[in-house]
């Protein structure tokens, strides 16, 4: 079933549209990578999806329900979690507060314990302020926070951007594991090759438009793709 | 509420804001000949709100009476009234408006040193006479054009009075608490000079800033000198805080303060016990004089209260008389400088004594060219710097009331 569906989506800040008409969808239990050059509008697209951009138009549905007419605050209860590119945790809140703020209701406590067993490093630092965590721990907290509300879709904006190659590999492992928890992932990545390897499909953005789209293996094999967007290093 | 202000009066005044109050005689005034415009920027509200309305109404009442009696030197008076809120900036704004819009030639009844200091550069520049009750030494220095007339005794005379009180009461270890403004510093400095001349010792002087929430450190320093009397030179708000905190810190020394600091409102706010035995000095009018009797009648008509309620109204009464006498003496007056010159000719101390405008008018008709007006507030003998001697009354606060003790006459 289609979870997220965007049609002719345009997102902008001031006068000009940064995202200029994008069609995109994410199926249930699917990992989708968005790649593209710096400034292509990837983060802006995701902000549009999360309802955090000043101006968004076109069509946007989630599990059949219209999203455009809903406020950013409604996304969580619909089942979308967001891990932004920067500032992805609440720095002055402790680790457990970062989690408890996402989970409401009776099973929040048990959900939190699940998170601590999934990310044992966090379990050891429950009362630490998030600002005092290491980069890797902080990324784990961002994940755990996003998972607290038992979402159907997690939107990740460059989860490995600030991390070492070793930690990045670990993050990609964790993303892969999300599938077993019945969570779909829409992930922006600069490390597109690695990201596509664990994804089902991918979109390549250029200047606010979709430049290429297709199954992940196909994109990885595409020579044009190789030259323009994946680079020869890595 | 712990405030003796009359709410309805305030509400009414606030309602009309700063619009000018005309005397209602302008029609007749124009018909009678030259109109002499007078500005009355007075303390209708603010720290000295208790005095301002009486001052303003006295000026208006005097204009009405002088006009009814045919004016002065062919002029009739038109009064433009403003509220200064007892604050320098609004006072200056009011004065500017009076000078520029209403084209007044004299500003009367200006109350405090800060107000007068704010106004005097503007009134000097516009060639307008300024009559005020400030006491700051800087007011004499700023009186560069000779247009300023200071009806309240100078800081120098206040120092004299303070020294008289301390000596008379037999105190030996005075300490001064001085607000950091020109008038208060002037008072303390003058007292120190007199005290040093007399005893050869210099008392401790603690300077304090206005608008502080807490004067404990200052007071602790003052009490460290183990004073038997504390001389407070400040105003009502800081005096209220200081009197309270002095009591809290266990002070038993007597306090000497001016009437405009230890006001009835202060006494009401703190309760009689805290203020008991405080020595309060005030500038007092010449209440035995013929002029005072006349003033009392005018004040009754203007305010429905005895003239003794408001010393500053007696001053305003004298101010109006001096302006009228000057115009009578020299009907051709058209500038502020000419008016100031003529005022010096009618105020004394030389010349034929007179107690009222009517008396002066007769003397002038009889050929007098120099008069000595003897006012309700005092002798009104202005020197070159625009200063006049004055009389002081000393009271003690007993059970929340001022009880008159004795008078002091300044003699340099």
């Amino acid at each position, binding site marked *: 079933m289609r979870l997220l569906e965007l049609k002719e989506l345009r997102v902008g800040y001031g006068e000009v549209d940064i995202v200029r008409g994008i069609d995109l969808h994410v199926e249930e239990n699917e990992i989708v990578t968005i790649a593209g050059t710096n400034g292509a509008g990837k983060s802006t697209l995701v902000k549009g999806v999360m309802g955090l951009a000043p101006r968004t138009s076109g069509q946007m549905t989630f599990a059949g329900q219209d999203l455009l007419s809903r406020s950013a605050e409604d996304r969580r209860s619909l089942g979308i979690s967001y891990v932004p590119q920067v500032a992805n945790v609440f720095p002055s809140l402790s680790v457990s507060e970062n989690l408890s703020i996402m989970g409401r209701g009776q099973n929040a406590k048990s959900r939190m314990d699940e998170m601590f067993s999934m990310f044992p490093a966090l379990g050891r630092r429950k009362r630490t302020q998030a600002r005092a965590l290491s980069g890797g721990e902080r990324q784990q907290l961002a994940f755990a926070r996003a998972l607290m509300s038992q979402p159907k879709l997690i939107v990740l904006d460059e989860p490995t951007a*600030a991390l070492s190659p070793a930690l990045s590999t670990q993050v990609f492992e964790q993303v892969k594991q999300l599938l077993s928890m019945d969570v779909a992932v829409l992930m922006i990545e600069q490390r597109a090759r690695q990201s596509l390897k664990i994804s089902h499909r991918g979109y390549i953005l250029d200047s606010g438009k979709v430049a290429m789209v297709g199954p992940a293996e196909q994109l990885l094999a595409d020579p044009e793709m190789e030259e323009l967007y994946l680079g020869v290093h890595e | 509420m712990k405030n003796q202000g009359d709410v309805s009066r305030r509400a009414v005044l606030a309602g009309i804001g700063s619009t000018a109050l005309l005397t209602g005689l302008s029609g007749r005034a124009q018909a009678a000949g030259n109109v002499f415009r007078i500005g009355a920027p007075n303390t209708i509200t603010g720290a000295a*709100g208790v005095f301002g309305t009486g001052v303003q109404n006295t000026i208006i009442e005097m204009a009405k009476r002088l006009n009814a009696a045919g004016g002065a030197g062919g002029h009739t008076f038109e009064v433009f009234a403003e509220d200064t809120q007892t604050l320098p900036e609004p006072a200056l704004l009011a004065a500017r408006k009076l000078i520029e819009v209403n084209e007044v030639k004299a500003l009367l009844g200006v109350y405090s040193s800060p107000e007068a200091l704010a106004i005097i550069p503007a009134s000097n520049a516009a060639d307008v006479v300024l009559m005020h009750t400030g006491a700051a030494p800087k007011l004499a220095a700023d009186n560069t054009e000779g247009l300023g007339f200071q009806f309240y005794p100078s800081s120098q005379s206040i120092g004299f009075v303070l020294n008289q009180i301390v000596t008379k009461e037999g105190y030996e270890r005075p300490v001064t608490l001085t607000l950091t403004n020109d008038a208060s510093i002037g008072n303390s400095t003058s007292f120190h000079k007199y005290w040093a001349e007399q005893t050869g010792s210099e008392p401790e002087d603690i300077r304090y800033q206005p608008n502080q929430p807490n004067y404990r450190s200052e007071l602790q320093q003052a009490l460290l000198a183990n004073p038997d009397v504390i001389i407070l030179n400040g105003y009502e708000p800081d005096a209220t805080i200081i009197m309270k905190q002095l009591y809290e810190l266990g002070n038993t020394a007597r306090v000497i303060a001016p009437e405009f600091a230890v006001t009835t409102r202060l006494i009401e706010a703190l309760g009689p016990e805290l203020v008991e035995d405080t020595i309060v000095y005030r500038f007092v009018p010449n209440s035995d004089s013929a002029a005072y009797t006349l003033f009392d009648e005018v004040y009754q008509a203007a305010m429905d209260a005895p003239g003794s309620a408001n010393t500053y109204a007696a001053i305003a009464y004298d101010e109006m008389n001096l302006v009228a006498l000057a115009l009578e003496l020299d009907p051709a007056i058209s500038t502020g400088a000419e008016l100031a010159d003529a005022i010096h000719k009618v105020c004394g101390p030389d010349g034929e004594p007179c107690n009222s405008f009517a008396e002066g008018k007769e003397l002038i008709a009889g050929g007098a060219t120099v008069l000595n007006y003897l006012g309700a507030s005092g002798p009104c003998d202005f020197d070159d710097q625009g200063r006049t001697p004055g009389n002081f009354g000393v009271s003690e606060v007993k059970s929340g009331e001022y009880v008159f003790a004795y008078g002091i006459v300044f003699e340099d």
Partner: protein
Amino acid sequence: MFYANLAMSGLVQGLLLATLALSVSLCFSVAKFTNAATGDFMTVGAYVVVAIQAVTGGSLMLGVLGSCIVTALISLLAYWLLFRHLAHVSPIMSLVASVGLALFLRSVLSLFAGHEQYAIDYPIARAINFHGFLIVPIDLWVALASVALLALVFAVLYLTPIGLQVRALADNRDLARAAGIRSRGVMIVLWSLIGIVSAVGGTIIGIKTVVIPDIGWNLLLPGFAAAILGGLGNPLGAVIAAILLGICQELSTPMVGFVYKTIFSFAVLIAVLIWKPEGLFGRVEQVR
């Protein structure tokens, strides 16, 4: 003992400033603008106490409680009618609006109550003398009230779910929205707290001084100084900085004199800003 008394004087001064600094800091951390009307909210709080005492015949307790309610309502009204509409534009607009609000509040007070001074009624008592160390009973109450107020604010912020949301919104607005936190509820809590802090702070200022339309405004600058010193947007830092500032200021008087004591505190502020621009207890937020 001389210095102990000075320190005591500074502590009271500091606690008084702390309420103002706390209010500035709360507003800055959550609503993201510098509220120049903070001092005038306090003035309003003090006047409400005076009015309630006049009506009820002098109960200070009733006055403070009533003032908490009334001032919180006025503070909420300011949010609802003014700051709510400016939340999406530059914070400079909110700052400008708050300056306007400050002037407006002061003129309304002057219009209805005049410039004459009022007093908050409380039992004035002599200091208790412990071998030369003087404790003024009302200072004790002032200290207790300040501590109770600070405890209340920090309890709301740190022990309640809505407090958690307030802090989350203060940290990261977008992330908080994505977490389903509605800013309206948080803002209602924030402005109520600001109102309550202003009411208690205003009462304390009114008790220590006299109630005139300028009392709050006069303290705004030292309050700002403390808030900046504490690291803007760090309420706990603001409180600690205010107390330190008060104590340092009074302890400095034997060296710098009474006339320059306020200047001294600003000198400290400038020195700290040069040496540690994020404030004593601030931190430069990581942007990655």
